[in-house]
């Protein structure tokens, strides 16, 4: 088991080999080569501690929650509530009722669109999004805009993949009602200055949703310090199960919002004349939630916190810097996205070789990368390319895996030479 690691800076060097032992899947071989898993922005792998937690829940604690007075139901209810508090602490929220369990980032954003957007955004209103958004923070707002006759304004980026903050500020006018911005770009790795953007929006009374899907797994998050109104992320991108995520929302806002889904568990009383909704967060958690997944998510953030998010960020920066340096040394390879502030995502294109061919040939070397548009077509359009190859790192990746990627790219170039 993992002893909590000391927090201070003079702590022993980050022991990747030790950490990798927690992840059974990393022992796999692919095409007789050790698996080099560099598709962490799509989904991350699960440590034994989280797997064990899921097994323990399922073998000794499972029942429906909030329903019965028997032992198992009380246990499951308590564990589910405990998972919520773990998530609250992980993002430093003030209260646990500000954390709503959803099925993931996409579901969280859709919840805000329906529960906040459909109540407060109308004809002629404007929603500000950025070029860097994942489709899941674009499409729901387009649906709302179409339904309500609202308008979407888009913050542009420069060639390095950084948001143009002057342009962002110029987009505000008396019609601006909402801002949606990704904390970290999944396609380019750019870390956006969300704190500053939120402060600017708040001076104009505009609430801000931050898509944290690519940030929460890689850096410490403090929603109170950011002062964001909503913050969304997914369990499966940070060592937890699929099918679970959270929406953080400020209590005062959540209370003013309308429920999104109706059903059991979200009501105080129901008669055919009138239904009284429950309090937050239950108002937004209709039906039986993915209890096991929520508890697994709680175990995942415990695992990450024991290592320390600041140490995770530092190790990943080392991986990024090493990979960037190595890749810059390869002729015919161009990195797409060179933001000064960047998470460990490396999108690249190779002269004369389509990303799909790169992905297939790297897979032969055991190296798993993602190729395609990464659900961020506006970013691809901005660079005039249909797709990139993307290596995205996690704290359990090692410097030698970066070298395996670079060696793999050399081999791909040789095949096409």
């Amino acid at each position, binding site marked *: 088991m993992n002893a909590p690691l000391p927090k201070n800076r003079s702590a022993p060097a980050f022991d990747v080999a030790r950490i990798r032992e927690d992840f059974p899947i990393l022992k796999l071989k692919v*095409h007789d080569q050790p698996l080099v898993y560099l598709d962490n922005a799509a989904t991350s792998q699960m440590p034994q501690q989280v797997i064990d937690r899921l097994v323990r829940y399922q073998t000794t604690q499972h029942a429906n929650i909030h329903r019965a007075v028997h032992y198992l139901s009380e246990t499951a209810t308590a564990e589910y509530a405990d998972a919520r508090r773990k998530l609250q602490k992980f993002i430093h929220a003030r209260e646990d009722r500000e954390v709503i369990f959803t099925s993931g980032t996409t579901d969280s954003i859709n919840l805000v669109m329906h529960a906040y957007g459909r109540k407060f955004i109308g004809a002629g209103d404007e929603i500000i999004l950025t070029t860097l958004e994942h489709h899941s923070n674009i499409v729901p707002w387009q649906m709302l805009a179409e339904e309500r006759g609202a308008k979407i304004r888009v913050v542009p980026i420069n060639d390095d993949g950084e948001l143009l903050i002057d342009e962002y500020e110029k987009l505000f006018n008396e019609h601006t009602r909402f801002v949606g911005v990704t904390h970290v770009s999944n396609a380019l790795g750019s870390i956006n200055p969300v704190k500053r953007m939120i402060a600017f929006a708040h001076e104009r009374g505009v609430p801000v949703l931050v898509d944290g899907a690519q940030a929460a797994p890689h850096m410490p998050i403090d929603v109170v310090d950011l002062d964001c109104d909503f913050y969304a992320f997914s369990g499966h991108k940070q060592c937890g199960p699929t099918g679970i995520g959270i929406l953080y929302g400020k209590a005062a806002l959540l209370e003013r919002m309308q429920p999104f889904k109706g059903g059991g568990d979200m009501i105080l009383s129901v008669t055919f004349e009138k239904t009284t909704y429950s309090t937050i967060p239950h108002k937004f958690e209709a039906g039986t939630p993915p209890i096991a997944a929520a508890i697994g998510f709680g175990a995942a953030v415990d695992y990450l916190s024991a290592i320390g998010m600041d140490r995770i960020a530092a190790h990943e920066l080392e991986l990024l810097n090493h990979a960037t340096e190595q890749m810059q040394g390869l002729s015919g390879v161009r990195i797409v996205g060179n933001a000064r502030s960047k998470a460990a995502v490396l999108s690249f294109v190779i002269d004369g*070789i*389509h990303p799909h061919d790169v992905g*297939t*040939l790297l*897979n032969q070397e055991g190296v798993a990368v993602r190729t395609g*548009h990464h659900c961020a077509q506006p970013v691809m359009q901005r660079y005039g390319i249909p797709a990139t190859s993307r290596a995205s790192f996690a704290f359990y990746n090692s410097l030698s895996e970066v070298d395996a990627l670079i060696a793999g790219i050399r081999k791909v170039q040789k095949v096409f030479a």
Partner: protein
Amino acid sequence: MADPRTLYQEVILDHNRKPRNYGVLEHPSHHAEGVNPLCGDHITVALDVAGETVAGIAFQGESCAICKASASMMTAAIKGKTRAEAEILIQEFLDMATGKRDLGQLSHIGRLTVFAGVRELPMRVKCAILPWHTLHAAFHSVASVSTEADADPMPAPIGNG
């Protein structure tokens, strides 16, 4: 699992580097555009059909090596064939790439067997077959096809061969 490097053989790499019949036709009698929205590949196929014979064929577009080589070899194979012969070849290629028929059951496929390896790479099958769907669409003067959603040509019956 087959070694995908066997897919990236010299023939395919050569057609990728120097695609045959790449470009446009002055006055095509038929043409169609094919896209694979998942990867952004898109190609156009233009035909000059005189009577029953494909007198001219050209393709253009942006795609991976598998798609481009498939298109290049397709145009070389189709040129001079009758429409009926072309439809048989389309069907054989699709059946080969999707693993519906074994190589032994295919009698017209010839050098195109270099693409048989894609059946081991489910994510790449669509790359290889996109040009062939687009050719089929061109014969039937369907302006555009897609490998996804409602417009997915895969389940559609191809020709009558």
